[in-house]
C-alpha cells in the first residue's frame, strides 16, 4: 500500500509539473495502464535492430 501511494504521488508530481491536476482515481487508471505498457516498451526497445530509424 505505501509503495502504491508513493507511486501515485510520483505520477501526481509529474502531472503537476506539466500543469495537469488529475484525481487519485484518474491516476489509478493510468497506473494500471503503465504497468502493462512499460514492460512491453522495454521489450520492444531490446528487440528492434539498432539500425532501424524512425
Amino acid at each position, binding site marked *: 500500500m505505501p509503495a502504491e501511494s508513493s507511486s501515485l504521488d510520483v505520477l501526481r508530481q509529474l502531472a503537476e509539473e506539466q500543469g495537469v491536476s488529475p484525481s487519485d482515481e484518474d491516476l489509478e487508471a493510468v497506473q494500471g495502464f503503465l504497468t502493462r505498457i512499460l514492460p512491453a*516498451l522495454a521489450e520492444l526497445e531490446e528487440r528492434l535492430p539498432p539500425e*532501424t530509424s*524512425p
Partner: protein
Amino acid sequence: MTLDPLNAFLHLEPQEGPGPTIGVKDVIDVAGMPTTAASRILRRIPERDADCIARLRAVGARIVGKQNTHEFAYGALTTSPHFGPARNPWNTDHVCGGSSGGSGAAVAAGLVDVSIGTDTAGSVRIPAAFCGVTGIKPTTGLVPTGGMFPTSWTFDTIGPLARTAEECVWALEVMAGRPIELREPGDLRVGVVESLFERADPRVAAVCEEALRGLPGRHEPVEIPLHDEITTILQLVLLPEATAAHLHWLRTRLADYGADVRARLLAGLFLPSTAHVTGLRARRFATAEYERALGSYDLLVAPAMPILPPRLDAIPDDYRLLLIPYNSPASLWGVPAASVPCGFVDGLPVGLSLVGRRGEDGTVLGVARAYQRATDWHERRPPLAFDASTREVVYNRQSLSKGV
C-alpha cells in the same frame, strides 16, 4: 432529446437539391455547422469546410448534418457521456461501434446515402461491421485531413461508409480528388489470416468462412508478422500524439472529459520520451516485415470484428483489447482496409475485412464490388430503417443541434 431515433446526429440541417445526402462525423469541419467531437469542450462553428467536404460539396453533395462519435474519436463505442450513445439500427439495445458510430448507424438506417467518418485505428471499419454497411479506411494520405480535429497525426485517415462498395468508390474518388482504378478480381493471391478466424466468436468466424468461399482467387493461410507487438507499437505512437493535441485542455478542462477518454489522454502524459520514437522505429520495422512476408498478396482476409456488437448494458471489460488485433495492423502499415457486410448472427450483422497493399484501394473496392454483385447482404435493411419520406420528417426538424 435526440434529433433522430438512433441518436446518430448531433446537428441536422436539410439541404435542397438532387445530390446524394452526406452525414459527417463531428470531428470534421462543415462550414456553418458546429464541430463538437461529442465533447463538452470543443464547440466551434468553422467558416470553411474541411478539404474533403469542400470537394464533396463542389460536386453537388448535400451535407445534411454532423454525426455522433466516441468523444474526440478516441474510443470504439460512440457512448458519449455528454450526448448519449448512438444506437445500432439492427437492435437499439446494442452498440453501433465507433468511433464513427453515428456515421454507421445513419447509413444503415437510410438516414443518409453516405457518411464521412475517420479511422485512426479502426473507427470506420468497426461501425461498418457492427451496422452492416460498407466502409473503407483508405491508404493513409489518400484523403486530405485538413479540417479534421486530430486523434493522431500519424495514423488519422478519413473514409466513407455507405451501403455499397460503389458508393464508397464515388465518395473516395471525390475526396481524394482522383480516380480509383477498380481491379476486377481475377487471379488474385489472397492471404487468409487464420489466427483472426481462430480468435473470433465461432459464430462470427463461421459466417466469414462461408463468405470467404465466395471470394475469387488463390487462398493461402498466412500469419501477420509481429502481430502481438502491433498493439503496443500503435499505442506508443498514438497516445503521445493524442495527448499533445489535447494538452491545453488537459491543463484547463480535465474534469470535462469522459472518464475513459481522460484516462487514455493522461496515459500519454506519463510515457517516457523514448516511447514515441521507439514506436515510430518499430512501426517502420513492422511494416518492412509485413512487406517482406505478405507483400506479394493482393488481399488479406479476416473477420472485420471478432464479436457481435455487444449490448449497451453489457460491454465486455476487454472490449478494446479484443478489437485492436483486428484493426491495428492495417492502420500501422498505412494500407487500405474495408469491412463488407457478409451475413448475420442472431439478427446482428457481421463484416468481412479486406486489406490491400498500400495505394491499392482499387483492389479492395473492386473485390468488395464483385462480392456485392454476387450476394445481397448489403441490401438487407434493419427494422429501424427509413425510406425517403420518413427521412424528410427527420430532416425537417431542421437546424437543430444537441446541447450538452
